[in-house]
């Protein structure tokens, strides 16, 4: 298997890594870097459990090869808040019971964080559009949408 050396920044840390050319970004993040907060829920790019930020944009890391992230800045759920801290969105997910099994949660948080960076006070419809690429099988989305909207309202 051919491999390439890639250089990238992950959650603020510079990383150089020799990675098989065929390896998916999500497997690189999970298996090579040990950042297991990013999850895999499907084979087809539908579910969004693997959502990370690539140069500030929410992307599905199962739809990219690790080598495509060469030279970029990656943020994962582990990097959302400082050590021992939670972001307002993470706190809102807890307060509004926006998670049950928690498997989709990292992806939801990454998509919603990207939305709030672009649009700090989204409406319910805007939140639903922004999260349409993330599947949750537990919550029916009710409390997830409520949590994201609440963060926008709190910062208004």
């Amino acid at each position: 298997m051919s491999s390439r050396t890639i250089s990238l920044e992950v959650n603020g840390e510079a990383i150089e890594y020799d990675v098989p050319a065929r390896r998916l970004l999500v497997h690189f993040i999970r298996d090579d870097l040990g950042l297991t907060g990013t999850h895999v829920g499907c084979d087809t790019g539908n579910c969004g459990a693997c959502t990370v930020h690539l140069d500030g944009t929410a992307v599905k890391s199962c739809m990219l090869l690790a080598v495509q992230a060469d030279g970029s800045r990656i943020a994962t759920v582990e990097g959302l808040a400082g050590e021992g801290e939670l972001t307002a969105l993470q706190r809102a997910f807890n307060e509004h019971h926006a998670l049950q099994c928690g498997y989709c949660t990292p992806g939801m948080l990454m998509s919603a964080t990207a939305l709030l960076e672009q649009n700090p006070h989204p409406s319910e419809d805007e939140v639903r559009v922004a999260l349409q690429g993330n599947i949750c099988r537990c919550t029916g989305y009710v409390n997830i949408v409520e949590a994201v909207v609440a963060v926008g309202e709190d910062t208004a």
Partner: protein
Amino acid sequence: MSTTTTTVTEQQPARRLEKGYIGQSIPRREDKRLVQGLGTFFDDVRRHGMGYVHFVRSPYAHAKIISIDVSKALELDGVYGTITGDEVAIHTDPFFEMSVEPGGNIKDYALAVGRVRHSGEPVAAVCAATRELARDAADLVEVEYDPLPVLVDAAESLKDETILHDDAGSNTVWSGVFDWGDVDSALAEADHVVKIERLHFHRFSSTPLECAGALVEYDKGTAEWTLHCNHQMPGVGAIWMAPALRTGIDKLRFVTQDIGGGFGNKICLHPQYVVLCLMARKLGRPVQWTEWRTDQHTANAHGNERTFMDIEVGVMADGTMTGFRVRALDDCGAFPRYEPLGCIIWAQVTPGLYGWRNIRVDFTQVCTNKSPVSPNRGYSRMQHLWLTERIIDIVATELDLDPVEIRKKNYVKTEQMPYETPNGCFYDSGDYAAALDIALELIDHGSIEERRKEAASRGKLLGFGIGSTLDSGTNNFGQSTLLNPDLQFSGNNEAASVKLDIFGEVVVTLGTVPQGQGHETTSSQVVADILGCSPEQVNVRRGHDTWFNSHAGFSGTYASQFAFTGLGAVKGAAELLRGEMVQLAAAVLQAPEEAIELADGFARIKDGPEEAALPFMALGAIVNANNAFLPPDFNPTLNHRYVCRPYFGMVDTEKKTGQLTLTYATQIHAAVVEIDPDTGVVDVVDYAAVDDCGIRINPQIVEGQVHGATAHALGAALSEEFVYDEEGTLLTSNFYDYHVPHALDMPPLKTGSMESPSPVAPLGAKGMGEGGGGGIHCVCSAIQDALASAGKAIVYTSCNPPHRVWSMLQDPEATRANVSVESR
């Protein structure tokens, strides 16, 4: 030295605790790790030198296996080894079957042996150094097949023209007649008999976002396997696996941590897990398997598909329904596995919410060349409740009765509670008509006709529908003997342990296997109330570990029973601990036990001086580290295990009656839909779900379960379907083709609640969470109502995506031919 005590008692009379943390929506304890990506799911577990397993799967739905050649795979650098069906047949025994003959003669191995019976069935496994390599190597395994005729229709299967399992000699797994009351007389005496030829409940599953899998380690010295896994019912999983592996149950250690959803779909993982056990032993290294999404859809766990035929319903002139008879044909796919339990589980809700006293169900289950089924949220009851709700609405349509009034007339009344059903189950509490009223108010039922006109002015067909369901919780496993009297199962149990550790930590371990239900939180609420501390002081260990010693034979999270058995065990253990803490404090403080109270994290003398108080830490330290002064005849352990064993009594295998389950939570759902007649697209524009599960330990968690169950039901009602072509290939094998609701698909949900405490449950709390598929029933009901003005089609299937609705609009008579009324 501290020891663990185990206490087993039959259920205690219900006692509501004084107002405390129970009943409060405290935020979940589990969330902090999960929102930081610090949860630990099975796929996050790593071991040095581990190998990755990939299964070679059959592209055919039915074929003989002529040969399997793994040599090319083994030649690849980094491939550790393979296993084929031939090896499985040598090293394991077939899994235990629950059915009588003919189904009981089926031989089900961990891999296909000699023949494949559904597309995606594993025929070999490959283990390699990386996930990618394992997959590549699996592609190099050469399997020669000889295709056989394919059965994808249960009715065809029933003819036995092609036999799937030669050992059984028939495709029928189980068949039997359930006959309660006198249905023939009821129909003969009825003023109207409504006949429905065929209704079909479709195949789907809750498809948890985390697929199945495990990391399995084998200890050659002790011959023990450790499975870091996401099995949601390890107690029963071990009962399947250990005999197949020819080992003792204590040689299988199941460890779960966080699980990414289960919904019943992670109950039948024993075939794959046995392969992993064999592979780990063969290779002498830890092996890991993560199921692919496509594999989950093609070959793990579908919900039961059921066809109802020749339905006849007796109705009196005033709308009172006296009885019904039906032939039910259940399709369990290629292997029965958890089946034929689905052939009896529905009987927990035999009359639905209604007063029918005369019911005959002629039930048959067959195998087909489709994925095996497994319990799926609402397991088997949902199918039957859908039938009862379809009957109600079809009778209402045909006899021009009001769907609200006919329900209220026929619902079991609150003053009849506890209500004994015709088959000996007891509905413990509830007020169905009152719950319906809440739902009607939430969707502003009074304005429906006005809204119908307004929608019509926009060219849309508006419809309103109701789904009335029961979520029966806490199974009596003795019901399995109604299928097979030789089975040695009865009752139910769950265990928990609670201890006070040396620095005053309250530590709880559960036998249950949570997958998102918030057991850490609700358990801490119950323990905090009993011990007089805050939930934060209670450390509920994550997940399940056989080595916790806090499990029992039926341990797991399934069948809406945690609130009864799980929390019953927690309560029992906490009360034992409390008793000892009081005794200990009384001894130390030289006061009578009655004078001691536990509050605010102290054991203290009620209304006593401030210094007459011992922090939990002091109690923990005295017993664990500073105990020389304790009298020799006083040996507190501060470590208690309790088994909650509900009392059911025995079932009557002749009459097929008995208390099959203990609690009945009520759900009344109501929907308003708009249909675009040009496209058949159904838009749910208003929706209400009312839930009554007795005392709610944590109302926010209860509401979350209601939301989730509703989303599953709406997905099933409008899009989710496992569709097979005639060759037995699954056409909806991933989330592209199998559309689950996204955030944009979900209508605004209005929720309401009631609390009818269960008189039989330890905390008055009924199991809930599965729901009864209320969303499926009320959407079918609403679609039928919407179609009333466009040809009066009858909704005959549980899944109604646009093309099906469009067909009903084009040819309503085709569905109406299914229904007739005989009036006298």
